[in-house]
Structures are given as structure tokens and as C-alpha cells.
């Protein structure tokens, strides 16, 4: 993200102008993932939206430090700009909403966003493990998750063996699962204080261990 997303002038411009940027390291935190270390000058590897959710979280806070939007894992420049726009609009709404109504307003806004992104009510309301948490690859396999509405149960063939559906794309399922998970976190924990999240971020990132390395192989030294 540092090499690709933060180096984009457009991203830098918006972050500098419209947001206060704040960073902390999760080094030593038991919830953190693992990584082969790399320098800012190392080549960037190919990453998927939401990859490395234990390593990177992008959280949008009110000026008094409450989380109103969250994005876990890697996010490419175009997607980051889109999330920044969404966060700006959501923040504008919160500014004119009395405090007592803000949580409900936030839940509605995140649900509307998921609907706009073509998630179904069944997917939004589904209870149970989310795709991507803990990098559980079994979650990608429809035959192992026959009742999970988060997993598309697209038949490969119709009666008569006519092909009807494109092959499942596990990567896009993973990315959409992460997006769904991020918004559901915000709906379930609206306006969570940042220090509380910092103490226990597992509601967003689960308890797995994601692993990151650059295509250059990184740098194991300090």
C-alpha cells in the first residue's frame, strides 16, 4: 500500500487536504499478521483487495476518535480514492445528525452501501464466519459450504449439462467477502472508540494470521 497506493499523487492530495492522517504500528500485537519486511524502495508485489487484513487496517474516525468506516487489508489506489469519497460523504451526514441518532444513521448508510454494491439482503444479514477471516480457504469451496449464503452456489451446468455460469473466481469472492465483512463490522459496532478497537481488533480482522511479502523478496534484516 505504501509503495502503490500512498505514492499516487491523487491519493496524497486528498489525504493531505481533507483528512488528518494518523498511523500506528501493530508490531508486538498478538492480533497482528506476519510479514517479510521490505523497504519503501522495494518493488511492490501484486496484491488483492483485502489481502493481509491482519497487517493493514484503514479506519476512518470522527474528530473525537470514533470509527465510522473501516477497510481491512490491502487497498489499491482507485479503491482507496473511492473509499475516501464514501468516508467524506458519510462524515458529512454524521455532522448534521444529532448524536443520539448517529449510530442508526451509520448502520443504514453501510447497509445502503452494500446494497449499492449488489450484495443481497441474505448476504448482508448472514450470521457466521465471513470469507477471508483467517484466510480460511475452505470458505471458497461451495461444496464445503452448502448452506452459506456468502458463497455463490452457482451451478456449473444446467440440466442437460448446458454450461450456464462462469467459473467461480475465488479471488473476487475473497475481495467481495472482505468488503462485506468491513461494512458489517461498521454496522455491528457503529462508532466504536478507536482505543477499544486497538485493544481488540478481532471483530474486524478475525484471529487468523495473514502473511505479506514483496515481490522483491523483502528484507529480513532490520
Amino acid at each position, binding site marked *: 500500500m*505504501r509503495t502503490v497506493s500512498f505514492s499516487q*499523487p491523487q491519493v496524497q*492530495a486528498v489525504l*493531505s487536504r481533507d483528512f488528518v492522517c494518523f*498511523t500506528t504500528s501493530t508490531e508486538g500485537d498478538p492480533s497482528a499478521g506476519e510479514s517479510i519486511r521490505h523497504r519503501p524502495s522495494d518493488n511492490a508485489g501484486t496484491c488483492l483487495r483485502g489481502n493481509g487484513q491482519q497487517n493493514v487496517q484503514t479506519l476512518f474516525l470522527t474528530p473525537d476518535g470514533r470509527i465510522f468506516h473501516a477497510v481491512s487489508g490491502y487497498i489499491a489506489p482507485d479503491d482507496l480514492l473511492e473509499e475516501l469519497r464514501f468516508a467524506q460523504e458519510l462524515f458529512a451526514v454524521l455532522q448534521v445528525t444529532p448524536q443520539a441518532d448517529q449510530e442508526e444513521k451509520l448502520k443504514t448508510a453501510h447497509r445502503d452501501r452494500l446494497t449499492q454494491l449488489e450484495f443481497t439482503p441474505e448476504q448482508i444479514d448472514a450470521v457466521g464466519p465471513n470469507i477471508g477471516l483467517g484466510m480460511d480457504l475452505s470458505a471458497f469451496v461451495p461444496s464445503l459450504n452448502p448452506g452459506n449464503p456468502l458463497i455463490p452456489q452457482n451451478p456449473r451446468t444446467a440440466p442437460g449439462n448446458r454450461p450456464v455460469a462462469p467459473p467461480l473466481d475465488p479471488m473476487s469472492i475473497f475481495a467481495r467477502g472482505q468488503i462485506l465483512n468491513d461494512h458489517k463490522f461498521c454496522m455491528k459496532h457503529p462508532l466504536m472508540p478507536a482505543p477499544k478497537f486497538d485493544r481488540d*481488533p478481532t471483530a474486524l480482522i478475525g484471529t487468523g494470521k495473514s502473511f505479506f511479502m514483496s515481490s522483491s523478496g523483502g528484507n529480513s534484516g532490520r
Partner: protein
Amino acid sequence: MIKPSFLLICIFILPAVSVVAQDGFLKFKQIQGHALEARVTRYDLDNQIVTLTNREGQEIQVDVADLSAVDKRLVVKAVERQLFQKSKARAKDIPEAGNPEAGNPVANHPGVGNPAGAVAPRLDNRRQPLVWSSSLKQATAKAIGTDALGDDRPIVWFRVLGDLRGLM
């Protein structure tokens, strides 16, 4: 969190909101016992007081609790739309990512409604090193009243394994 002064500035500087009338005047059903066409010129969120200005320029202060549900909705929508317009105006300033050839409207964009006619800080496509706050306390202190209009800004917190400025 919100400052009434910001709302006032927004209302004066942004294009007129047309909820009912084309010139930005809203048709309230009942203000102090009468129908009224007026603009929302101030909204005190803390005290829930809205200031309306009628076509003659007279100001009327109304407790939001005294408004009918319809009129209350009108006020909320008006303020909300004005803030959305501000947000969208900013979004338009953002060149499409991955298309650096598209130019940068921000660089030539006058200060959005700055009453003093000042020009907003120019942003261009040169790399601008991000300024990072290193603690939540520092970030919250910087978030209040610091945007181009003197309003609050949201905070974006990058919680990462490593140091964004060094090894990670």
C-alpha cells in the same frame, strides 16, 4: 462535533439548495403559526435552534423541537444537501486515479465559496509527502476546525504492521 459557524459559512457559500422553490427558499408549513418561505441560514446543532431568513431578509429563530415533522425534515434535508454538495464539490476536484494525464482541476479551482475571495491551497500532481500524526491525541487535536473552511476533518488511521516511513 459540528460548529454552527461552519454551517453558516456553508449555507452562504454553496449554491442555493432547491428543495421546493427554485431560488433556494423552502416552503415551511407552519412557523410560529404561519406558512413561511425562508432559507435555512444557521443551524445550531448543540442547542437544536434553526435560523430562517425570509424573502425580506428577516431572521426567525425556531426551536427544532417546535417544528412539525414535515418542516423538521425540510430543515434536515436542506442542511444535509448543502453538506453533500460541499462533499461532491470536493470529490469533483479529485482527478481520476491512474489517469495523471487528465490534468488537475484542483490546481485551478478557486477557493470554494471563501467569503474573503481567497483561493484554496493549490494541489497539483507532484508528490506531496503525507504528514502523519503519531498518536490519536495528536490527530484529534489536528482534526478540529482545520479544513479549508475552518471546519472539522475526519481522521484516517492506518494501523499497520511496521512503520509506513520505514521497514514494514
